[in-house]
């Protein structure tokens, strides 16, 4: 059984989520059907919607269930773009965003002539409110990570939201890695008012909080105008056509609720593990450097620069010892790329190739930490001998 330090990539299914899914999947009915069986399914779906709304501080009508983070992000960015008023052609894109965001914006730039306005990150990996504000005037939309998924630094979502409201730009927040770990509050951040600008969309993903892969949601303000990605039966305010995945939504709601309920206690528990892990790494590798904000970060995230060792080599050696770690986000071709987030924090390519992202979650224990620390010295020594590339 591998020692698992990649909870940011995915995390074990919560028992509540499994139970909710199994119960829901026994109810046969298309939630869009008018008859009794359809209503039975619909009932489960709408309960899930209400539960998610409670967990994220928004109205049930503002919850759109999707297939996960990537779909939610695409729906938000493309949806806002396609419904923008004439004469607004810029997209405010901070550095270091997730690939779903970067690639969607790149597509908008290449295919739809969107003008990209980048915003540099602080050396700690946060989105700076002042620079973000300066980029806003006249933009069609803006997007930002609530917490960076690689280095874990938590940005000032309330500040970014205020800036977008004052600047009259629709804002999408990527809460995929943040929801369930830190307090994510849609309505509190958005504030009152019926403007179609300010915080209008927020993405969340199921499998990051212990629901199955293929679940998630986009919170869409009732005041926003958004074009859909999928056209069809017009379900979910016409924003996400297709037979709703009732079992998935139910599992997602159960997982998200459980995460939010246990959030503060879990943050404290992970904080202790995190400090133990970091102390142990520093003892084994004195030159090790924590990247990202030491305090304002996701509780389970330890992201370190290990000079002289290639992250890819360390990953391999630790994997061979049964310890699973990451160098950044998972990708398709299987080749390690130098972390664009680390680069965006002002570090050089060498450093960007010499990092490890260690993320703990609900099932992480002291034993995991001890096992990683036991395997690290030999792996590091060998990686240094092999030379950083």
């Amino acid at each position: 059984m591998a020692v698992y330090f990649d909870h940011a990539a995915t995390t074990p299914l919560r028992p509540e989520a499994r139970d909710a899914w199994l119960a829901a999947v026994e109810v046969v009915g298309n939630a869009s059907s008018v008859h009794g069986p359809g209503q039975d399914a619909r009932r489960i779906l709408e309960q899930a919607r209400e539960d998610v709304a409670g967990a994220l501080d928004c109205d049930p009508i503002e919850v759109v269930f999707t297939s996960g983070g990537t779909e939610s992000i695409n729906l938000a960015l493309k949806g806002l773009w396609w419904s923008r008023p004439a004469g607004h052609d810029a997209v405010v894109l901070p550095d270091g965003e997730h690939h779903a965001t970067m690639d969607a914006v790149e597509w908008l730039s290449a295919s739809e002539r969107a003008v990209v306005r980048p915003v540099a990150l602080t050396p700690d990996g946060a989105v700076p409110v002042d620079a973000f504000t300066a980029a806003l005037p006249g933009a069609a939309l803006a997007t930002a990570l609530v917490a960076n998924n690689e280095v874990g630094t938590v940005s000032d979502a309330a500040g970014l939201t205020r800036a977008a409201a004052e600047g009259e730009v629709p804002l999408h927040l990527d809460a995929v890695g943040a929801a369930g770990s830190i307090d994510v509050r849609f309505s509190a951040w958005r504030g009152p008012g019926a403007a179609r600008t300010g915080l209008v969309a927020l993405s969340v993903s199921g499998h990051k909080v212990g629901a199955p892969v293929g679940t998630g949601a986009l919170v869409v303000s009732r005041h926003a105008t958004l074009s859909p990605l999928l056209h069809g039966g017009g379900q979910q305010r016409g924003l996400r056509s297709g037979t709703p995945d009732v079992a998935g939504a139910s599992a997602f709601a159960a997982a998200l609720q459980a995460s939010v309920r246990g959030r503060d206690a879990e943050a404290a528990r992970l904080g202790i593990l995190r400090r133990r892990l970091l102390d142990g790494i520093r003892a084994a590798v004195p030159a090790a450097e924590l990247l990202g904000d030491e305090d304002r970060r996701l509780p389970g995230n330890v992201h370190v620069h290990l000079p002289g060792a290639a992250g890819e080599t360390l990953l391999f050696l630790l994997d061979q010892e049964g310890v699973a770690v990451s160098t950044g986000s998972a990708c398709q071709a299987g080749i390690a790329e130098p972390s664009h987030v680390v680069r965006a924090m002002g570090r050089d390519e060498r450093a960007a190739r010499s990092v490890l992202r260690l993320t703990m979650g609900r099932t992480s224990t002291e034993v995991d930490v001890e096992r990683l620390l036991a395997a690290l010295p030999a792996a590091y020594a060998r990686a240094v001998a092999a030379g950083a590339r």
Partner: protein
Amino acid sequence: MKILAAMSGGVDSAVAAARAVDAGHDVVGVHLALSRAGGTLRTGSRGCCTIEDAMDARRAADRLGIPFYVWDFSERFRDDVIDDFISEYRAGRTPNPCMRCNEKIKFAALLERAIELGFDAVCTGHYALLVDGPDGRELHRASDAAKDQSYVLGVLTADQLAHTYFPLGDTPTKALVRAEAAERGLTVAQKPDSHDICFIPDGDTRGWLADRVGASEGDIVDRSGAVVGSHAGAHAYTVGQRRGLSLGVPAADGKPRFVLEVRPVSNTVVVGPKEALATAEIAGSRLSWAGRAPESTSFACEVQIRAHAEPVAARAELVGDEVVVRPEVYFDGVAPGQTAVLYLGTRVLGQFTIARTVSAVPVDA
């Protein structure tokens, strides 16, 4: 042994990895990402290292129950293989990029990394035999002469050979390897072999080079220096070539002419009769031995100058830092830049890059 199995996504490397597992070794599979511009899907039987190839390699590893990784050697590959390919053509020579890849990437960069990470050997699907002889490890031709790839492995040194593993070398025919793959449930059993150069997926080497070497018009001359035609880029011609010569002036004897030499400095291509291709001597100083260097400075051997050429009996002499080889039967057109691999029976002795050739036919003949 801890074995790193290089898996291209083809059937040979998949079966090689399978045999390594069966032999009881501790095997890890790796796919080399050599081209950053690689395509997604494999089309036909050309090219290599698309994402689909990586998937095929991964599925083969899954089937064998071994760990699988993808390692990026694209920068080294670009520098050591692709750039070398271009600069050789620019210099009027005819390179063999597969040998360069074996020499610099597969059995160098990859092998070094493997040893750094605790592996004992790199395993590939090459058809060649490793034999432990009285003086150490020896490289021999494969059992299947038609599939023998000892030529492209001729660049390997004794030290490299000590850390390689070729499980397919003793297979009587390739057909048996495919049958074995099918029996093992490997989905690549019927996948076509890749031909041509892996980084030129559409097979149009001439076009690819034209984009990179640049094509400028020049003269085609006969051996007396008279201009007999023109060309649109010297890199499109190689020694021994007959086709593609659009010559305005027919030869005096009416017989076809062949490319004898490519001169990049003057941007000319020299042509002449077939007889003038006859080469009496080849020599070069960029050499390596697949084992101990020969004790004698003069010895009999067989020499093979192309991957699919017949070996020719010859005499080799070590003169200074050069090896000079005189075949018993003249070679029929040899391009500088090619590799000459020396054999003694089935055993590979070593290789050298052909730097200069001596024609068997004097110029005024």
